[in-house]
């Protein structure tokens, strides 16, 4: 089945999530991928949104982290201090699922500013929940489109630190942090040369570099259904 690079990225990210895990979800691509996983191989995954909804099972993709559907379908709704203090800092989150504007070779994420902090070229939204999610979840899945502007040698602002156990899913492939990010998979049709050109540093490549399984018809059907709902 024909698919585009964003669909491959979302499907690859969804596959990283294991059934039964407790996942703290960011909005946008992370939320799309997490809900795809819930519809596919991980029906028992527990999705937690920073608005305080625990065990949300949205019927359509939320635009914000606090859409009403997230609360209506949740097992429990708690306050914002509680979600960060008891549930995240309390050590109950298996996976943090995050996006960002920029990433460096150590997995550090920038979602704050491009250019000087006091005289920014682009003022981005800011850190939000990410710094503590990145530091306190047992592992981190990052989803980000790969280009020289996003994969940078010098990150403009360290909003969140790279995690010891971190996988980065892009539109080109899959990288895992082993001290530094290491390319371990290329998506079908992507060349190593393309991945290197889209990286602002000398990209480390795994000895056993392999190809991502293309999206199955079922994965694509469900993803498109989710996005159309």
């Amino acid at each position, binding site marked *: 089945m024909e698919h585009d690079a964003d669909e491959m990225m979302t499907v690859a990210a969804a596959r990283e999530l294991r059934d039964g895990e407790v996942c703290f979800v960011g909005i946008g691509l992370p939320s799309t991928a997490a809900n795809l996983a819930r519809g596919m191989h991980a029906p028992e995954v527990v999705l937690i949104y920073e608005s305080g909804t625990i065990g949300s099972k949205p019927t359509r993709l939320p635009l914000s982290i*606090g859409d009403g559907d997230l609360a209506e379908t949740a097992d429990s709704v708690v306050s914002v201090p509680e979600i960060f203090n008891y549930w995240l800092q309390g050590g109950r989150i298996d996976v943090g699922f995050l996006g960002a504007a920029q990433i460096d070779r150590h997995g550090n994420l920038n979602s704050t500013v491009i250019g000087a902090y006091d005289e920014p070229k682009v003022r981005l939204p800011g*850190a939000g929940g990410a710094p503590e999610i990145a530091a306190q979840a047992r592992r981190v899945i990052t989803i980000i489109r790969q280009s020289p502007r996003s994969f940078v040698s010098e990150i403009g602002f360290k909003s969140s630190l790279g995690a010891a156990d971190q996988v980065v899913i892009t539109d080109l492939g899959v990288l895992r942090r082993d001290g530094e990010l290491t390319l371990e998979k290329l998506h079908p049709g992507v060349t190593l040369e393309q991945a290197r050109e889209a990286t602002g540093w000398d990209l480390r490549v795994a000895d056993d570099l392999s190809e991502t399984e293309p999206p199955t018809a079922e994965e694509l059907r469900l993803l498109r259904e989710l996005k159309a709902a």
Partner: protein
Amino acid sequence: MADVTTLPEAIRALVRDGDSVALEGFTHLIPFAAGHEIVRQGRRDLELIRMTPDLIYDQLIGMGCARRLVFSWGGNPGVGSLHRLRDAVENGWPGPLELEEHSHAGMANRYAAGASNLPFAVLRGYRGTDLEPRTNVAPITCPFTGEELTAVPALRPDVGIVHAQRADREGNVQLWGIVGIQKEVVLAAERSLVTVEEIVDDLEPRPGAIVIPKWAITAVAEAPRGAHPSYAHSYYDRDNDFYKAWDAIARDRDAFKAWMEEHVLWSTTPTR
């Protein structure tokens, strides 16, 4: 004891030029009607505090009400930038805007410390990030274990404003759905205003609802659809189409000003 009053009266009595003002509501129950009344009354030099500035602070900033912003995530959720916030930070329009920026966990704990009448809260956070040297936090050592943690200063806004589903005629407030940081803001603030969808005779119990008693609130005012384009659980849904449409309105200074004139300055009814 809560003064049950009108929205214009409440804003006139509670919000002064130069105040620190927190209008909260985490995606849900954002007090848009109260924010619009602040714009209409022409308040200036405010220190605006909010975890997620959202469209309401984009509007207040663009209308020149703010001198300073304390926040943790300043985007249009699922859509992109807050263009009025960006224009203020990047170009100083309509005036310079000082920023104090935190993480969500930091802001949540700052409100909780304020509500608890403590000078600061403690969390594991900020350490090693570029936020740490840029903002108002300090390292602190646990006196029992020696663990290095982060202290964040309490938030004690002059005014805390939230929206809720309903209040009774005495000013007891009831809210449900995503409860966010509403209770903490009311209890942390020097003066507080709760706008509500409706004032009713009796607060019938609801699953998961919290009640803030009248004696912990300064003023209550009825503002039907007062959270639109955010939402009030059980009353109306989040107007996601409006959040998307705001991107084009706010991108352009003139389009923004025209929209604010038509829908806020010359109107006292909700925007839709």
